[in-house]
């Protein structure tokens, strides 16, 4: 992990930095969350929804990591797990070189100051009975900052997100438009001076022009405040625009991860290929009639054997049903490495379209 992407800014300038520029901002190790399904008279656990199933990745400092996937693939659960809003079953978080934990390492309170989240639904993520200034100042006040100072900070932040403080600070959420509310949400997330911002479908509910404004605002803030983003979205165009690296999720697992250019120009996993083919094209000659990906995703309670995508994959073979393809060691890979959990991408996997191994090449 010595290689730093070009986009990674000089983190040494930040007084909050501890691990140096080569240390990822956040490392997620083998994180798992199964939701129990209870039924019957005794409320016994009859099954589990494998919402997030053994996911590992890291985010470099100053980087934007895009996370894409269909609805229900576990993107939001992952975000909430990172925020400690739901308890994880297994796995570790390493924040700037320090293990986040109950007993040792960085306390959860410190994690919350470094990690903040912007929620998808801009309406329900603001308290309808509080003026927005109070909503923004609430977090700092909880963390022990004097009310007067928290209020001044809130006014500052409103200015930063492009809302005039003296015009907006006393307004209620219902007096704002969707885009303005999302700006307030961003300001609220920034109030604790975080280093990593998780944006969970933060622009998905906005119309295109407002979406563009908020995206530009996010780019500006990232430079001004030395931020790192995890950008969760189902909109592949937006992810391509804002991300440095992209992680593709399918049924609670990572199927492909890589730099945005490599992944978009040369997707290795058939699922990523299908997702990219689903994008609307501006060119009428490139219109597709048939949906590249048919049917619903399989039930996460009882995921398919082997590769979870084999039920919908056009290239599925016997090996795909029998054996789950490995993604490789994501945590040891460099940021510019492009990994895919597909037998076709791995030499010697037994799939007919897999690249030849050295032995086969030389006919030994």
């Amino acid at each position: 992990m010595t290689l730093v992407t070009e986009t990674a800014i000089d983190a040494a300038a930040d007084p909050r930095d501890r691990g140096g520029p080569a240390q990822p901002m956040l490392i997620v190790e083998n994180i798992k969350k199964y939701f129990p399904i209870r039924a019957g008279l005794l409320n016994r656990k009859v099954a589990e929804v494998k919402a997030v199933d053994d996911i590992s990745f890291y985010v470099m400092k100053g980087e934007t990591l895009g996370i894409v996937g269909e609805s229900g693939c576990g993107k939001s659960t992952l975000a909430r797990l990172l925020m400690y809003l739901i308890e994880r079953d297994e796995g570790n978080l390493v924040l700037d070189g320090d293990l986040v934990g109950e007993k040792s390492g960085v306390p959860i309170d410190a994690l919350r100051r470094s990690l903040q989240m912007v929620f998808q639904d801009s309406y329900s993520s603001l308290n309808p009975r509080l003026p927005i200034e109070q909503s923004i100042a609430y977090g700092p006040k909880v963390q022990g900052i004097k009310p007067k100072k928290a209020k001044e900070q809130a006014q500052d932040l409103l200015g930063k997100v492009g809302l005039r403080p003296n015009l907006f600070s006393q307004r209620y959420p219902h007096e704002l438009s969707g885009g303005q509310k999302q700006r307030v949400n961003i300001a609220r997330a920034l109030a604790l001076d975080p280093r990593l911002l998780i944006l969970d479908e933060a622009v998905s509910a906005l119309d295109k022009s407002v979406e563009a404004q908020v995206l530009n605002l996010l780019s500006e803030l990232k430079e001004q405040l030395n931020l790192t983003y995890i950008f969760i979205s189902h909109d592949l165009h937006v992810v391509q625009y804002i991300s440095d690296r992209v992680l593709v999720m399918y049924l609670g697992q990572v199927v492909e991860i890589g730099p945005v250019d490599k992944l978009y120009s040369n997707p290795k996993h058939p699922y990523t290929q299908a997702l990219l083919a689903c994008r609307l094209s501006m060119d009428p000659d490139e219109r597709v009639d048939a949906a590249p990906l048919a049917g619903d995703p399989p039930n996460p309670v009882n995921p398919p054997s082997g590769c979870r995508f084999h039920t919908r994959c056009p290239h599925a073979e016997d090996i795909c049903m029998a054996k789950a393809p490995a993604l490789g060691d994501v945590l040891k890979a460099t940021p510019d490495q492009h990994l895919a959990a597909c037998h076709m991408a791995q030499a010697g996997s037994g799939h007919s379209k897999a690249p030849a191994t050295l032995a086969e090449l030389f006919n030994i």
Partner: protein
Amino acid sequence: MSVIPADSASLPAAQGAPATKVRGYWGSVWNRLRYDYVTLFCLGLIIVIILLAVFAPWLSPMDPEKSSMANRLRPIGYKKYLLGTDEQGRDMVSRLLWGGRVSLMMGILPVVFATLVGGMFGVVAGYYGGKVNMVIMRTMDIFFAFPSVLLAVAIAGSLGGGIGNQMLTLTVVLIPPICRVAETATSQVRALDFVDAARASGASTISILFSHVLINVLSPVLVYSSTLVSISIILASGLSFLGLGVSPPTADWGLMLSTLRQSIYVQPIVTALPGIAILITSIAFNLVSDGLRQAMDVKA
């Protein structure tokens, strides 16, 4: 997307703009209430009724418990008796004023206590959910299984009469419905993202409950409780009517109705007076709560 100019974050012209005066939440509630004349009229009526009850010792022309065998069941306007006399020759004006003290107290105090207790249980049940919710709400369901009048009679019957026991009875009867309303409102608020956002900023549960949950649960609970005032007055009157509330000769609207009912063929209008007092008071409370519900509804 880069062709769309970024909204300037520094806003140079902003400093000159005048600060807008924005009403607070209660200010905006009052602003909506100001033009609701029915609610304002009923609010005025309630204030007058409360003032009449409070100043009963000074306002009532006669002793409400002094009977006169010679002047029993006199009609309205008979000599010095402005509203006639009851079956023991006691002045109806004085008895209605004094009875209002007991009846209003029975209407308001049990509702206040039940709102505090039931609201607290409901908020706790709604916020924590799971087992806590099950224990609290199933206990409330046991009380729900009985019709409220029957429950009140059963509790009052086992506790015995008297003002204190009657108030306790009414409080117990009113707790479950308030608890249910508070629980529903809280569990709805609990599911909203701003509670998660508050948790993500490291706030304690107590702080979230007080700063974010209560303020949103308050208006549905307050509105519902205000409708219960009239129900409480009627229940209290019913208990007194059955002899399970205040005991004679204390004046109370329900008790007066109960004792006067034998005389309904002799003096129908005088007999109806305590009933009319209950009717006016409960309608006023109902209309005010209706107006409050509309005024407290924050929308665009």
